[in-house]
């Protein structure tokens, strides 16, 4: 597979001795959406800013499209789009003017630019707001403008740094679908977030970061194999007698049983038909329950497994 980005042994220290990114190596392949998943301060933005030559770094090498990346690599830069974590637009320019300004840094031809801007506006769904100033947009619409400014010039490689922070679920779905569309149109995408649901639905490959180190990498399924548990069953049941908890833990395949806040949580390391066994047990013991459902482990469980702490903050 063709490597679009090749990072080798990247180390970045802001203050002497404290490594924000520690000896990190990663590849991004053509046409994929790579997710960088990690909690706050794990080094996601730092990694991206180093790749973009916005930051200098203590050690390592960075190649993009097979060429060494440095601040003067204008030919590489012309193929890149970046959606920064903080909304960065001009307050004094309208939605359309902002897009025209930023797109104009890449596309000189006015007619082509106009077409590109219209495409971007449509992609993020801002058609009705072209003449609005950023101050007149809601937080979610502003995020969409921020995204449009980063991608209007139809770059081949796009970085998204937590583009959906503070966006409601519906807008978030729109944004995620838009990103998939960009990938389907041939772009390669690097996507950072600390929402595991997003990487699970969006990303072809995931890298889990913590404290500047890569903990694990692979597809969502591959990563889940790292979790020791195989299945999680949740039962909502009121006032369960303690004696049942012991009985449940003796059932087949059961690993750990916890009961708190009227919720019974049972994890399994392996096994089939766990949920029907459980339903039968509840029935046999005449235990009344509101809800019962089974889940596969999430990336949060993987993270918990690898670091002993929750991914969520």
């Amino acid at each position, binding site marked *: 597979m063709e490597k679009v980005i090749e990072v080798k042994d990247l180390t970045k220290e802001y203050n002497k001795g404290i490594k924000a990114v520690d000896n990190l190596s990663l590849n991004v392949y053509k046409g994929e959406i790579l997710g960088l998943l990690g909690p706050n301060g794990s080094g996601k933005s730092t990694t991206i800013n180093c790749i973009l030559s916005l930051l200098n770094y203590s050690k390592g090498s960075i190649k993009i499209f097979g060429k060494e990346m440095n601040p003067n690599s204008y030919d590489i830069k012309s193929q890149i789009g970046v959606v920064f974590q903080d909304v960065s637009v001009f307050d*004094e320019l309208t939605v359309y003017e902002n897009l025209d300004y930023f797109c104009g840094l890449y596309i000189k031809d006015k007619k082509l630019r106009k077409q590109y801007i219209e495409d971007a506006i449509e992609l993020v769904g801002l058609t009705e707001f072209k003449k609005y100033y950023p101050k007149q947009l809601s937080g979610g619409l502003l995020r969409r403008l921020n995204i449009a400014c980063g991608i209007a010039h139809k770059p081949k490689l796009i970085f998204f740094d937590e583009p959906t922070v503070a966006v409601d679920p519906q807008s978030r779905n729109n944004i995620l679908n838009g990103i998939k569309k960009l990938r389907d149109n041939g772009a390669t995408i690097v996507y950072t977030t600390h929402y595991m649901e997003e990487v699970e639905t969006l990303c072809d490959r995931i890298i889990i970061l913590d404290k500047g180190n890569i903990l694990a990498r692979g597809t969502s399924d591959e990563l889940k194999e790292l979790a020791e548990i195989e299945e999680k069953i949740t039962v909502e049941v009121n006032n369960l007698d303690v004696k049942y908890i012991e009985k449940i833990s003796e059932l087949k395949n059961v690993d750990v049983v916890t009961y708190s806040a009227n919720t019974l949580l049972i994890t399994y390391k392996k096994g089939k038909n766990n949920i029907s066994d459980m339903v039968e047990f509840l029935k046999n013991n005449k235990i009344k329950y509101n809800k019962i459902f089974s889940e596969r482990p999430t990336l949060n469980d993987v993270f918990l497994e690898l670091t002993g702490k929750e991914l969520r903050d």
Partner: protein
Amino acid sequence: MFLHNFKYTFKTLFRNRGLIFWTVAFPVIMATFFHMAFADIIESDKLKVIDMAIVSNEEFENNILYKKTFTSLSDEKNKDRLFNITYTSKDKAKKLLEDDKIEGYLELKNNKPYLTFQANGINQTIIKYVVDEVHDTEKIFLMNADLDNSLGTISADIENYLNNNKVELKNIANSNLNYMMIEYYTLIAMTCLYAGCLGMVAIDNSLPYLKGNGKRITVSPTKKISIILSSLLAGYIVQLISLGLLFFYTICILNVDYGNHIGHIILLSLVGSIAGISLGVLVGAYIKASDNVKSGILIAITMAGCFLAGIMGVGMKYVIDKNLPLLNKINPANMITDGFYSLYYYTDFHRYWIDIISLLIFTLITIILSCNKIGRAKYDSI
């Protein structure tokens, strides 16, 4: 790229209400206030005759240049009369000053003029400028004099000079340039320096460690120098509009008469604006803080500069010139106001050109310092 960025920078600057208020509207409002405050003075339209004393010691009596100059400037028949002079002893002069009967007194001692004032104001400044001028003229004569020349020849020379140049010093009292002009001059100086805000905003937008927009520009395939130059040009054009408006408003609406030197005044304000913009770039490049904090710092620097240069009363300028001359030599506000004063007080342009050159040197140094910082910033931390 240059034009693209120029166009949009111009738009962003022009739509930035706070910025436009300080750089365009504020000077016009100030001019209006001056106009209202000076309405009475316009009525009388004459410079008052200044009361002063001269210690009539032997040295003064023997110094033809000083004696003649002050005699002619205090001649009651002279319609441009500037001084009302009491010739007296040093002790009596001191007493007069203490009793507020005079604005100040002059004493010649060891071939040097010594001025004593109690307060600082426009009158003291005028006295000082006249004395400075006479002192400079005297030095030139002494320098040109041949060593063999007897003192007599030198005094003949001086007498000759005075006969032919009488008009020059009298022009000081030229009645169409009146007291309130100085306030308008400092206002123009202030407007020039407020251009710094334009320079600062322009630079803010193109540096990666300052704002997200700067980061966007930095990751784009655009040469930073082209962005910076076109942004600064846009800032300068906005500044020209602001100056144009101020001149139009003061000349056409408030009927301010800038005298015969309008060309020099405009040139000085153009150069002063460049210095102002580069000061803003310097602050923008070196100080990492929020927009508001940075504008605050810049406005504080500008205000302090204007204060030291005499915007609140020219006396301050005199105090600094006397006690901390270096401070005013590096103060761009002072270079600008000093250039205006020199047009007001002198008929030759020597001092004016020195001020213009000082401003250009100031600009050059600020630009070198800023480039040094910006150049390093391009690949440094955000």
